[in-house]
């Protein structure tokens, strides 16, 4: 399965020997000569016993640094307290440093363990040679090689020089699950102490010598031109050095951040009038709704087998999903220093290679001339997969001929995002005379990402359209006739991946409509789902296989743990929803809500069950479930982004509201399915999609009002 060509790079590091094993994101990397050796991750064990793990994944709160280190430490039998982390930089030929799609656990699973196991085998061999015994007589623990018979010990650090001279073993054996010491153990986040002391270094905290600070007035809508501005007044602000006009807007550069902000205000740019057809989200929503009723590009089509009872009645509904901002608390920022054909960047990014490539392309230089240093990230959620803010910083630095930090204000961040795109969903289902679902149809009208251009030569087949409509074609229930389709609708504003990408809107529509059908059939919505999951245990659609048993199991767990059948009081409701994300992660939620007379919703409790494969760090899984639930509460009950005259209308957390402490429910997380799991799957995104429909269904249970549009406002329920 996994390529296992291996090598180590022998180095004579300053001050002593070390053992280094390199690998890229997919496999341990081999090279015939060190000059070909370009790892994006490597394990280095120094003479002092410090294990330095250099990783290419960006830490943005998902706990990736801790989880990857755990995988490595386990196979290496390392002393956890001696593990240090370093952040990789993209180099030419390294195209896989990106962090997104909840893929880091899968990416790291093979390579981290192989690197750890190879290094451990070499250390054992070195110790055994030293003692003139067989390696089989040795074992390792806590960064020490032990001789079983004599009790002799050698610390890893003492033998790295000898180990580094050995050939890298082919297929060093990996541990069996019952031998794991770190994997599956509750492990505190490796960056925790830095966070609570304020030492954590995020992009915004970085500095380089001679750096100017820039604040940028960006065009409010596509094509806006500056009509009038007061450069003299801006330049008169103390500390302002210059004003740079770029493709991205008017940048005011100053000696400190505040002077840049004041200078920008003094510049008082007046922009040209928007055209009459400038983007308007209300108009767009109508377009989406109309498009959702078209036939569209079919992404799945299954005919009812002969003998299926006819449909006695048809239920249909249209769901509307809005635009959202990512709104990480750390706004976009980037340090750039362009000197000749070279550029240095310090940037909180999920996509170091994309940043490197796009900045190089913009500057007309080669990627190897662009040095990208990745910092800790104060919230990514997909926004930092885009390179726009790095290209902008490079442009400003080049024009200003100075190192510069561009810091986005909160309104800049809110108005110039790569938004979660709106969508509309038409659903219809046929019920037979007994209330059984005999046909299902779900058409999504949405928009392709415009993070980077889509190749016109792209084959736009069924599979391609499926790629834009997760949560639609992967309908997990057993229904005789199924048709799903996707209708692309042009969207002229920037939009891109957001936590769980295309799924949240689709799963909101699907899981709410399932609830509508349960209600129409007079069935309990949880029992109704379990019933609809009876049939073939697995099915394959697109690239993934889906396992209904695992989805049933998480539903059964939340049924039991939430005491599902319990009677609840007036204006109190319980709702359920579930989802399989990417064929890998199975999650069910039971949500309790109270809706008061004024229509205010309070989510009181959420019981979650998750089967995400092998759990590396239970704390990490819990945190992602909790975070995904809070994220969903924000999108169900908080703000949305609307557009008028081509511009986003919201600008802060006051008008794009997000969940606060008072909105946080009690959360219970139950992890199941771990016992037979072969490998881990990432948990950043999967918790998001099913939470909003579970809330919507709980609101229906409390009020009898069906939610078909987000976000939910008190007016909808009063």
């Amino acid at each position, binding site marked *: 399965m996994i390529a296992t060509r291996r090598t180590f790079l022998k180095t004579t590091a300053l001050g002593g020997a070390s053992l280094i094993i390199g690998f890229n994101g997919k496999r341990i990397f081999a090279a015939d000569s060190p000059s070909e050796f370009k790892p994006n991750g490597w394990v280095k064990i120094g003479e002092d016993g410090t294990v330095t793990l250099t990783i290419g994944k960006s830490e943005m709160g998902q706990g990736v640094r801790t989880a990857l280190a755990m995988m490595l430490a386990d196979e290496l039998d390392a002393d956890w307290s001696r593990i240090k982390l370093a952040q990789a930089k993209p180099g030419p030929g390294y195209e896989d440093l990106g962090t997104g799609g909840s893929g880091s656990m899968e990416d790291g699973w093979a390579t981290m363990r192989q690197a750890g196991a190879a290094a451990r085998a070499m250390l054992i061999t070195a110790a055994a040679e030293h003692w003139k015994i067989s390696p089989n007589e040795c074992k390792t623990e806590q960064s020490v090689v032990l001789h079983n018979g004599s009790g002799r010990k050698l610390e890893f650090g003492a033998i790295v020089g000898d180990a580094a001279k050995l050939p890298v073993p082919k297929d060093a054996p990996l541990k069996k699950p019952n031998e794991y010491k770190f994997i599956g153990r509750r492990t505190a986040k490796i960056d925790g102490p830095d966070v609570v002391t304020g030492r954590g270094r995020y992009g915004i905290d970085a500095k380089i010598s001679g750096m100017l600070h820039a604040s940028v007035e960006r065009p409010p809508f596509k094509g806006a031109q500056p009509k009038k501005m007061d450069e003299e007044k801006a330049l008169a602000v103390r500390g302002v050095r210059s004003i740079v006009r770029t493709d991205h807007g008017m940048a005011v550069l100053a000696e400190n951040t505040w002077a840049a902000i004041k200078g920008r205000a003094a510049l008082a740019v007046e922009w040209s009038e928007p055209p009459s057809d400038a983007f308007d989200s209300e108009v767009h929503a109508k377009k989406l709704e109309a498009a959702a009723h078209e036939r569209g590009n079919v992404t799945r089509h299954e005919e009812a087998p002969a003998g299926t009872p006819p449909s006695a009645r048809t239920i249909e509904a249209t769901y509307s999903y809005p635009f959202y901002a990512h709104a990480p608390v750390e706004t976009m920022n980037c340090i750039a220093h362009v000197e000749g054909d070279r550029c240095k960047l310090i940037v909180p990014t999920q996509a170091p290679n994309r940043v490197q490539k796009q900045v190089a392309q913009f500057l007309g230089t080669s990627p190897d001339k662009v040095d990208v240093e990745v910092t800790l990230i104060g919230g990514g959620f997909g926004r930092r997969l885009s390179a726009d803010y790095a290209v902008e910083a490079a442009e400003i630095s080049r024009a200003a001929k100075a190192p510069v930090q561009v810091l986005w204000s909160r309104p800049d961040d809110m108005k110039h995002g790569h938004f979660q795109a709106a969508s509309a969903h038409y659903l219809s289902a046929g019920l037979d005379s007994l209330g059984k679902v005999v046909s299902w149809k779900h058409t999504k009208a949405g928009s392709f990402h415009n993070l980077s251009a889509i190749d016109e030569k792209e084959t736009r087949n069924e599979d391609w359209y499926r790629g834009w409509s997760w949560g639609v074609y992967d309908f997990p229930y057993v229904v005789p006739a199924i048709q799903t389709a996707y209708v692309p609708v042009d969207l002229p504003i920037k939009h891109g991946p957001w936590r769980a990408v295309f799924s949240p809107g689709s799963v909101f529509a699907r899981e709410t409509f399932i609830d509508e059908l349960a209600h129409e059939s007079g069935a309990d919505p949880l029992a109704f789902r379990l019933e609809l999951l009876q049939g073939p245990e697995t099915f394959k659609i697109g690239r993934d296989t889906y396992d209904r048993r695992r989805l049933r199991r998480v539903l059964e767990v939340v049924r039991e743990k939430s005491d599902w059948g319990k009677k609840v009081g007036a204006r109190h409701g319980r709702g359920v929803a579930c989802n399989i994300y990417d064929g890998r992660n199975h999650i069910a939620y039971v949500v309790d809500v109270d809706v008061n007379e004024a229509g205010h919703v309070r989510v009181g409790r959420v019981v979650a069950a998750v089967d995400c494969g092998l759990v590396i760090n239970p704390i990490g899984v819990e945190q992602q479930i909790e975070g995904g639930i809070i994220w969903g509460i924000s999108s169900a009950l908080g703000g949305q982004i609307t557009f008028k005259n081509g511009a986003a209308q919201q600008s802060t*957390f006051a008008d794009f509201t997000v969940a606060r402490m008072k909105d946080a429910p009690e959360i219970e997380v139950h992890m199941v399915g771990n016992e037979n799991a072969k490998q881990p799957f990432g948990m950043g995104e999967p918790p998001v999609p099913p939470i909003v429909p579970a809330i919507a269904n709980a609101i229906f249970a409390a009020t009898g009002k069906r939610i078909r549009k987000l976000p939910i406002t008190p007016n909808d329920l009063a």
Partner: protein
Amino acid sequence: MTMSNITLTVNGSTREVDVDDDMPLVWILRDTLALTGTKFGCGVGVCGSCTVLEKGNAIRSCQIPAHEAKDRSFLTIEGLSRDGNHPCQRAWLEEDVAQCGFCQPGMILTACSLLRDQPNPSDESIDAAMSDSVCRCGTYPRMRKAIKRAAAAMQKPAG
């Protein structure tokens, strides 16, 4: 805009800075004094990332211009404890609160202020004190537990 040399005390050290009268304290701390533990999140006092303490009270450093910060004394996350061993910092680690961590210095200092006023806060008091701050990662349930843990630790007699 007038500029001036103002004197203020940060984490026990008296500092003289030459800044514009209207420069908010958050930028004095971050840009002038290189104390980057205090974060910038919104600039308009609605997110809480820039929270610092003054006489134990949580205040938003983006809302205090230099001329008002003059001659006052502030505590930032860097000054909360010598080794990260303040009960709130310890509780934050023990409850594994942080995800991205960016908002957490402000959250910890807000919690310190709450616990100064109410050594044994109810859920309602925690909601009231903490709900002016934003954590986009959604660490609220763990913060709630950490605040209660810190409260318990602070009530134990020293030693």
